[in-house]
């Protein structure tokens, strides 16, 4: 069941605002558009995935442009939005390179960010009336 607001085509500025909100809080864009079930699932699944990655000693990569793969990983990490900044403020996500789960943790964090980018694109399509 969808709220009527979800089917309305949004104005351009509101669309970009929605995308920003959807990026900053995973699932918030869908919640805003009345797709409550999807929003709640994204909020829980992506946040948990990110936290799980941190718990597995994953690293929040720095924006080091001299190392392209590190920079790309940093962009992917940033894709999760608000949880990324909260983790930075809390001083977690330094990563323990000798931990046996280090690479697994990185994979969880990067995948959470990339999946949230897809969620933002979905919000854009819904707001534009394409879905």
């Amino acid at each position, binding site marked *: 069941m969808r709220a009527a607001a979800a089917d309305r085509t949004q104005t351009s500025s509101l669309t970009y605002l929605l995308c920003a909100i959807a990026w900053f809080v995973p699932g918030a864009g869908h919640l805003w558009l009345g797709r409550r*079930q*999807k929003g709640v*699932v*994204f909020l829980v*699944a*992506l946040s*948990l*995935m990110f936290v*799980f990655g941190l718990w*597995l000693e994953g690293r929040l990569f720095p924006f080091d442009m001299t190392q392209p793969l590190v920079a790309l990983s940093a962009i992917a990490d940033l894709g999760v939005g608000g949880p990324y900044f909260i983790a930075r403020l809390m001083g977690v996500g330094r990563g323990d390179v000798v931990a*046996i*789960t280090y690479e*697994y943790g990185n*994979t*969880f964090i990067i*995948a*959470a960010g990339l*999946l949230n980018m*897809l*969620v933002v694109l*979905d919000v854009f399509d819904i707001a534009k009336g394409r879905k």
Partner: protein
Amino acid sequence: MTSHLGLMIVFSLFVSIVFAVLTRDDPKEQIVFGARLFGGFIGAGVLIGWLLYPLPL
């Protein structure tokens, strides 16, 4: 948790849930598609693991 299989299952579960909810609107379809994706991830992981088994490290 340090088991490769366990972590693969958890990762597959998260990704399957997000993809299923993202690409399907009907809850029933989401469950069916999510289960298929999850099974595909695990099946492919185990299959590729066995294919790599004879290779020397």
